[in-house]
Each structure stands twice: as structure tokens, then as C-alpha cells.
């Protein structure tokens, strides 16, 4: 059973959502303010966090920062519809995805599932399969090991959120080729790209900050205008 941590100040809403999620087969923990939520997220084994951005005391963004200091657990933000600033700030701070606040619980569950599916390490493999499954993709200084969900740059392990890792993995598997934003969204976020959706750009920008530069001073992930992104094959 996968554990979902629900952080929302609206007690009734949290109760309803908990009921819904439990019926969907999740184990649900609930926190009603940011401080308690951040503590739970860091102390308990939680697979995914659903975080409301509009909260009194410690607001969602602050909570996100606190959680990210200690943990790379996937985080889905609940943001008000049309509030793009919160979304972009949230994604920049390492949230994995967002769901607009009044939206059907099915949508929330779909997003949770999409992220969990991608985050979940490869199912236990037969020992003799490891060789083929545990591939190591190496492009220059970057190496990505999907089986371990680990990426390194110059032998330094990179601290990536799960979505960032997914994006990097997709780019690494297609190194040297341009991957469109639609493909990236579908493969890494598990959902089609929405209009005016800047999630991919924000995630890629934070990946860039975590990766080093190529010997010629360029970023190894290049934006291909109006098309997508490309991981340079050196």
C-alpha cells in the first residue's frame, strides 16, 4: 500500500479527500498545517505528498521548501486555478506537478498514480536480467542509472527530484535527439502537455542548474526553440 501525505488546512476537504483516496487503495496521512506536514513528510515513509498552496501560518511554498531541504519525495501541489505564479514558484522549488484546487478527485488520483508509476523503481528483476535492465547511460560527464534512479555528473551523485530524474532519463535515452515537450510531458510527467503549461521548462531549468557545463562552456541540455529539448551528445 502506498502512503499519500495530504497537507491541507481545510479539515473537511482533507477528510473527504482522505476517504476518496483510501477507497482508491492508498494509505492516507493528513496534516492540517505546513509545519506538521513537513515534519510528517520527513519522518514517515511517504511515497507522495499532496500539498495545498493556500494555507495560513506556513504556506504551501514555505512548506515545500522545508520538505525539499530534507527529502526528494514527489510533491503534487494544489494551486488555485489561474494562479500561475504559485505554480511556477512551486515547480522551481522542486514540486513535481500541480493540480488546480477545485478539481475532481479523479484528476488528483490520476496525477498521483502517474507520478508514482514513474517513480517506482523497476520491479524486482531476476538476477540474470539485471545485466540488461540495469543499464548505465553515459553521455560525457553525465551518467544515468534508471534502475537505481540515480544520476551522476563527474562521479558526483546529483540531487534530483523524481520528476527531474524522469526528464533527465528521457533526455538521456534520446541523447543527441530533440525530444518535443509533448513527448517529455507524456513520458516524464505521465500526462499530455496542457496549453500555457510551463512545467517542463521550469523543471528543465532546475536540472540545468544542477548539471555542470560542457568543456566548451555550454549547457549540456539545449532548448530547441518551439520544438523541445536536446541533451547534447559529446
Amino acid at each position, binding site marked *: 500500500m502506498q502512503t499519500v501525505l495530504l497537507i491541507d*488546512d*481545510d*479539515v*473537511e*476537504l482533507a477528510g*473527504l*479527500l482522505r*476517504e*476518496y483516496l483510501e*477507497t*482508491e487503495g492508498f494509505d492516507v496521512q493528513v496534516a*492540517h498545517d505546513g509545519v506538521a506536514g513537513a515534519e510528517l513528510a520527513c519522518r514517515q515513509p511517504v511515497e507522495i505528498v499532496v500539498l495545498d498552496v*493556500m494555507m*495560513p*501560518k506556513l504556506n504551501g511554498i514555505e512548506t515545500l521548501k522545508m520538505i525539499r531541504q530534507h527529502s526528494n519525495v514527489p510533491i503534487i501541489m494544489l494551486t*488555485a*486555478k489561474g494562479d500561475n505564479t504559485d505554480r511556477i514558484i512551486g515547480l522551481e522549488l522542486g514540486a513535481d506537478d500541480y493540480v488546480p*484546487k*477545485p*478539481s*475532481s*478527485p*479523479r484528476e488528483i488520483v490520476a496525477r498521483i498514480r502517474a507520478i508514482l508509476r514513474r517513480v517506482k523503481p523497476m520491479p524486482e528483476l531476476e538476477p540474470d536480467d539485471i545485466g540488461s535492465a540495469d543499464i548505465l547511460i553515459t553521455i560525457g560527464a553525465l551518467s544515468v542509472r534508471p534502475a537505481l534512479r540515480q544520476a551522476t555528473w563527474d562521479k558526483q551523485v546529483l540531487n534530483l527530484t523524481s520528476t527531474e530524474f524522469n526528464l533527465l532519463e528521457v533526455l538521456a535515452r534520446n541523447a543527441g535527439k530533440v525530444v518535443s515537450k509533448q513527448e517529455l510531458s507524456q513520458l516524464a510527467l505521465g500526462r499530455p502537455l496542457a496549453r500555457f503549461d510551463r512545467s517542463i521548462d521550469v523543471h528543465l531549468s532546475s536540472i540545468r542548474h544542477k548539471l555542470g557545463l560542457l568543456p566548451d562552456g555550454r549547457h549540456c541540455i539545449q532548448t530547441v526553440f518551439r520544438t523541445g529539448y536536446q541533451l547534447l551528445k559529446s
Partner: protein
Amino acid sequence: MGRLYWKFFIFFFLAQLTAVTAVAIWVANQNQDKLNVQIETSPPARSLVDAAAATLQYGGVEGLSALISRWSRQPVPQVFAINEDNHELLGRKLPVDVIGNARALFERQSAEVAAAAKSGHLMPRMALQKIKANDHREYLLFVPASKHVSSAVRPKPHAGPFGFHGRSGKHSYPVMPLLAGAFASFIFAAILAWYFSKPIQQLRNAFASAASGNLDVRVGKSMGARRDELADLGHAFDLMATRLGALLQSQTRLLHQVSHELRSPLARLQIAVGLVRQQPDKLASSLARIEQESERMDDLVGELLALSRLESGMMGLAKEAVNLHELLVTVAEDARFEGEARKIIINYDAEHQNAVAPVMLSAQPDLLHRAIDNVVRNAVKYTPEQSHVSIRTVCDSAYVTIVVSDQGAGVLQDELEMIFQPFFRGTNTSHADGHGVGLAIAKQIIEAHGGTITADNEASAGLSVAIKLPRL
């Protein structure tokens, strides 16, 4: 430069020009009238005229010519000798009016001399003398004021650029001062017009930019140290823009908060609907939830409408005499009912109040009830289980103060003012129940009744809200 500038400019310029011209003409006339101004009658002039007269009488025309030409090279007043044909002995030019004045003055002087002789006074030395010379012509001898003496004759001109120089003309019109006056009035009119029209222009620009939505524009600074009605107007504009800006901002904030507040029940509605889809057997409880949420939204919208009506002053206050005690009893009764489940005790000391005299207020009873009820309900909401909410009244001659206090967590000191703003929730409240407009509505109602509402933290624990209302 707007039209106003040119209007101001032309009017002031014309006014000043007229004034300058009038003064110039008056001064010129003044000169013509005053004979003595153009003719020297001072004692040295009289001596010179005496000497010239003696020379003419005994030395003849030749003698006088020699004397005058010698004098003309000396810095002394010049004697002129004019015959009947207005010809000067040495052919020097004099303005016609000066000569005319000299003759007029001579007549006056002769009359005065005759009068003096009649009354037996000593004959004064005359400033003008008429002598019959050896060429059988009569010469009038006098000393004109030095400014009329042509610089051709007098090497040392006393007259400056502003002097009366009408040597050649028949009339000595003061052209230079007129021009100078016109020039000065031009400058002053321009400055004055600028002085008036500039701040008006600034104000107009400010209004235009305010009209286009920029309420951050201020004109007070550009008025500088100016202190007059126009500066006051500028400051009044600034005040208006500030107030409008604040109002607009608070409205925008309110709208933002309203949409957020409406979103919470909507989010719950959606999840409730989702739950029914997921588990059709839970239809009944979910429907109850959906009903509850839609009622909540309805309440919120209703309260908001009431608030906006109150704020715009649209709600007519048909005031009547209200017995405060009776009103408080019903409020306390309602609150008791509401607090029963959480075992909250409402203290309202009724007997003591009635013992004095019934406190009467002029108020709209429904609204006043609503205001006090909102305050009391708020207290009931935030006071912990099994605690007290007390309602007290304190009277003085003109006012009555209703104090509602609870035993809850109170409000942070710097948030005390803010709890009367719509949708404000204190940081140390844990549960957010209700719509957050109750106290805002109470404040509006109390203020519409000429009262005040303030909040303070009790020394021990809890919040106390004081409603001060004028007595009837």
C-alpha cells in the same frame, strides 16, 4: 501652453498695458499743465535772467548774443531769449509747448507782480522778463528746465533714456517709458499666466492619468513650496487619489478573497461528487454534504451582498427606539442554543441592567441585532469547550458600551485591528469555520449607527470586543 495660459496672458497684458498708457498720458498732461516744471524759477535762474535782461537792455541784441554764447559753454542754466515770432536769439530750438508755457507763465507772473505792487509788497525778482531790445523786437527771457535744452546746445544732457525727449514733436509723448512699461507688462503677464496655468496643467495631466487608471500619480510634490488655493487643490487631488487607490486595492483584495472563499466549498463539492461516483452506496451522506456546501456558498454570497450594501450605504436605516436589554436577551438566548453542544455558558447579567433604567438606543433593530449577534457568535465559535462567554454593558450619560468577551486564544496584538476586515483570519486560530465576514458586517452596522467597535485581548485569556453606541 493651453488656452488658459493665453487667456490669462492676454487679459493681464492688456490690463497692464492700459494702466501703463493711462499713467503715461496722465504724467504727460501733468507736465503740460504744470508751467513751472518746464521753466526754471529758482533764484539762480532769476539772477541769470536779470543779468541777461540788463545786457539786452543796455548792450543790445549783440551784447546778449555774446553773453549767451559764452554761457552755453559753461555748466550753468541756459537763458533763452524768444521774440514775438517764437524765434530764439541764437536760433536754438525749444519745444513749442515750452515756449507756450513760458508765455503763459509770464502772464501769470505779471499779474502776480501787479497784485504785489498794489498791496505794497516788495517786488520779487522775476524769473521771466520781457525786454524791448534795440532791434525793436520784444524778447522774452527765461531759463527752461534743463531737460528741454537740446543736447546740441547743452553738452551735458541731464535727461537719461527715460527722459522726455519730444524735441522735434509738437507733444512730448513719453515713448520710452511706454515701451518699457509695455515690455515689463509683457514679461509680468507671461509670468503670471504661467504661474496660474502651470499647476492647472499639472492637475489636468494628473486627472487624465487617474482617469486612465493610474492612481499612483501625485501632484503635491510638483507644486513645490507653493501655498495657495491651487496647491490646496493639488493636495486634495493627492488625498483623493490615495483614498481611491486604497479603496480600489481593498476591493480587488476582497474580490480575490471572495473567489478563494467560494473555491473552498466548491472543492469540497467536487470531492463529494467524486465520492458518490466512486462509491454509489454513499449517496445519502454525500448528498447531505453537497447540500451543506451549497448552503454555505449561499450564506457567503448573502453575507457578501449584505456587506456591500452596508458599505455603499444603500441600506436605509429606518431607526426606532430599541430597548438594548431586550435585544441582548434574545442574542444571548440564540447564543446559548448554539453553544449548548459544546457546553458553553453565556453570561448575561440581565437583572442588574434593568434595575437602573432600560437603556434605549435609536437603531434599526434587525441590523443592530445582527451586528451584536455576529460578535457573540464569533465569541462562541472561538471560545473553548465548557468555557464562558460574557456579555456586559457599561453605561455613561451619552454612550453605552457592550462588551463581549470569550476565553479563547485571543488575537495577536498587531492583528486586533484587522479582525474587522472581511476574510481576515487570525494566525493563532486553528479551525477556519464560517465565512469570515461576520465581524466586518458588525463593524459596518455599528458605524452606520454612529458607534465604534474595538477589540482587545483580555488580561487572563480570550478576546473582548467592545461596541460603543450613542444612547437615545
